[in-house]
């Protein structure tokens, strides 16, 4: 399912939360809207779903225009044939797991073979034995899986995810990250995923749209975003950055302590050391900058350390 946003805008009261935004979400891709809270990413997602009405522009889902200010089209959410996974899961507390998953099929009067299809969806998320339970009898991770089963049961062209992992603890979050990407790609479903967590975005996405105060700052593959950020905001928001000047930086892992020919070299005192298990994370402090460097061996605070950076690794914009 291909989704096209064309010059979409949105204000809440006096505050414009989405400036004219054009975005093409490709069929079968896993696309992430990444940005700090209040950047408008959730609003964008909700406008695709039809839960929020834009002020202007157009939204197309495949060949259907679902919203157009000029043509006065606004298809309500129930007619857009999408699926949504909410941040709080939004499982209906008065329905069993089975009924929750069956809801989308029943609501669209698509009840042929209902039992099997619901069970298939539950099997996909490994919850086939839980169909008679109520949501409050499940753990957070299980609730999250039910929400996902509910989404895939309706065989949508696209699933919209609104920070679905933020309610889970760290361990579960990482596990669900893998499960979600595997499932969406094996089912061939287009996914639009909203998050403020850059690790999530980097690890799951085919493409990331980085949003900042209602603007899409960059829309690219994770690698491009990391290695070629198009603005200071993107560079700061994604990955760790060691700044050389106002518009030049390098990533900590691109520095070495072995001198190479033509490399830029810097000598800095170690300010603090954190042992992370696999490496030591050093904070290096010069007059006006603080850098981080991951080292295999331990240094003590106060020691002077020389580091070298290939000029080609310096990112500038």
């Amino acid at each position, binding site marked *: 399912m291909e989704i096209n946003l064309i010059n979409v805008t949105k204000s809440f009261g006096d505050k414009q939360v989405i400036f004219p935004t054009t975005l093409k979400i490709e069929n079968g891709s896993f696309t992430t809207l990444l940005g700090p809270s209040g950047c408008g990413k959730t609003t964008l997602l909700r406008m695709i779903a039809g839960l929020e009405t834009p002020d202007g522009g157009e939204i197309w889902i495949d060949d259907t225009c679902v919203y157009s200010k000029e043509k006065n089209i606004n298809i309500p959410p129930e007619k857009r044939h999408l699926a949504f996974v909410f*941040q*709080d899961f*939004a499982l209906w507390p008065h329905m069993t797991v089975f009924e929750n998953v069956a809801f989308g099929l029943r609501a669209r009067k698509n009840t042929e073979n209902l039992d099997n299809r619901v069970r298939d969806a539950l099997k996909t998320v490994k919850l086939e034995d839980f169909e008679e339970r109520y949501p409050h009898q499940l753990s957070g991770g299980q609730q999250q899986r039910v929400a996902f089963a509910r989404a895939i049961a309706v065989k949508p062209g696209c699933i919209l995810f609104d920070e679905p992992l933020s309610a889970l603890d760290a361990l579960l979050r990482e596990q669900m990250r893998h499960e979600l990407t595997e499932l969406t790609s094996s089912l061939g479903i287009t996914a639009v995923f909203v998050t403020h967590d850059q690790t999530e975005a980097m690890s799951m996405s085919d493409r990331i749209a980085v949003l900042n105060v209602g603007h899409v700052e960059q829309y690219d593959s994770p690698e491009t975003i990391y290695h070629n950020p198009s603005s200071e905001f993107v560079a700061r928001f994604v990955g760790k950055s060691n700044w050389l000047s106002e518009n030049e930086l390098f990533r900590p892992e691109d520095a070495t302590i072995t001198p190479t020919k033509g490399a830029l070299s810097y000598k800095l005192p170690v300010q603090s050391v954190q042992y992370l298990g696999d490496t030591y994370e050093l904070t290096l402090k010069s007059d006006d900058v603080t850098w981080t460097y991951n080292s295999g061996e331990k240094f003590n605070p106060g020691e002077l350390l020389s580091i070298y950076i290939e000029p080609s690794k310096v990112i500038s914009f």
Partner: protein
Amino acid sequence: MKQIDFKKNLPFILLLILLGFLILCPLISIFAKAVIIDGRLDFYQAWQIITNSENLQTIYNSLLLGVSVVLCSTVIAVPTAFLLARTQLAKYSFLDIVFMVPFMTPPYIASMGWILFMQKNGLFQQLFPSTGALSENFFQFGGLVLVMSLHVFPFLMTMLKNAILNIPASLEESAAVFGAGKTKRLTKIFAPLLTGNYAIGALLVFVKTLSEYGTPYTLGRRIGFYVFTTDIHRYSTTAPVDFGSSASLSSILIFICMGMWMVQNYITNRTSYRLVSGKGTRPVQTELSKLGQFGAWLWIGIVVLIAIGIPYFAIISTSLIKLRGFGLAAGNFTFGHYKELLTTPKAISSIWNSLFLAVSSATICSILGTIVVLAVRKAKGFFKKALEAVSLLPEMLPSIVLVLGIMLFWNSIYKIIPLYNTIGIMVLAYVILYIPYTVSYVTSAFTQINESLLEAGRTFGATPFYVFRRITLPMISRGIFAGWMMIFIIAFRELVTASLIAPPNTLVISTYINREFEQGSVSLGMGMAVICVIITIIALLIFRKIVEPKEV
């Protein structure tokens, strides 16, 4: 068996004995009176009393009234709650205060307003002479149901409104995304999520209706419709006094109310998990069209007109009319009745009596209730449960039943403690009736205090007493004061206690109003009613100031 540590539990034991003496003994007196006839335990006779046809009729009447009031208040409360929770009307918070007015208006005063409005040569007929005797149709069962529903519907409405506000928006949004249209969302998601809360609200309305005395007394008696409370009152006060019958009826009423509370409790436990929402609860709004908004305001207007406008118009205009024979006519208005009220010793003394009772009972309740809550928090096991249960018991029972129990009990121990027939017995009765208010307000204030705040105080070297004085007390003081104010408001206009156990020639506001309404100057009575309502409203505004969470 484990030895109960007597010394450690002594304060709890003493407190439990005190509460038992105050609350349980009167109740036991009722049951005893119901089954002990001529000094012998006689269940057969007790059963005979209950099942005589007159009493059966009373029981039937009460239940019919309860069910009808539940239905009627549902019709008023459900649309209003929806409008106030979900539409553009939600932003007008003054409507919350407006809808508290009918609930806070003493029921007997509202009924008097309705009677004055609808009766023969009443205000309606004066305003619309061409309608003839139409308005007198009000004086039947339907009229009684309407007046009682207008009193309780705000209670149901507030419960429903809060329940609606507690439904996370995402539950309905997800239904929309998964293909459910407006109607389907309403019937499959919205309505089922509210049934639990509605059932609880309906049960409470039912219990409140069965326990209500004011309206059945003023309006029900007029149309010959007797219920539990009016019959209990009649048997206890009108010759030939028959305490046996009133005790039997009271016992049945107690069983019905306790049963309802148990059902209510069961539903609460079953449904409370439901609307505990996750993050990101955002209010859902239904945008009404211009026409829809007009309809919404029209509905609100009609409800306000009927629930507040009519009774208050009747009360206020009657209090200002010079000669009732001339009715609403220019030149026939005067402030004379108010002047007369403020110069008549009887009227002034009844205001003072009400003030004295309200202040003293509110103060005693606040102290005793806070002690009870502190004890409940400290105690464990049996004492915790027992203290909590006994102190909240009066809230679950109709006040007329408790007052009857107090009458019977204190009468029987008159030789030991001669409190009966003094104003002291009234203070005592008020304290018993209203102690649950303090207990629940202070308990809820405590739930906002995290245990770690107190532990923090201890770790910084404070003695337990210092922690109590500097941390606990300031934090629960709002709860205590809110409880005090609420008790003041309700005690100030209390009718049933005053009409049953006031010493001879001691009038309070409610009994004064009643006496003037029935056999004196109706205008004087209504003037007093207006004064009573004004004082109530002032107290209520102060109360709201206290309860409103501070801006952070």
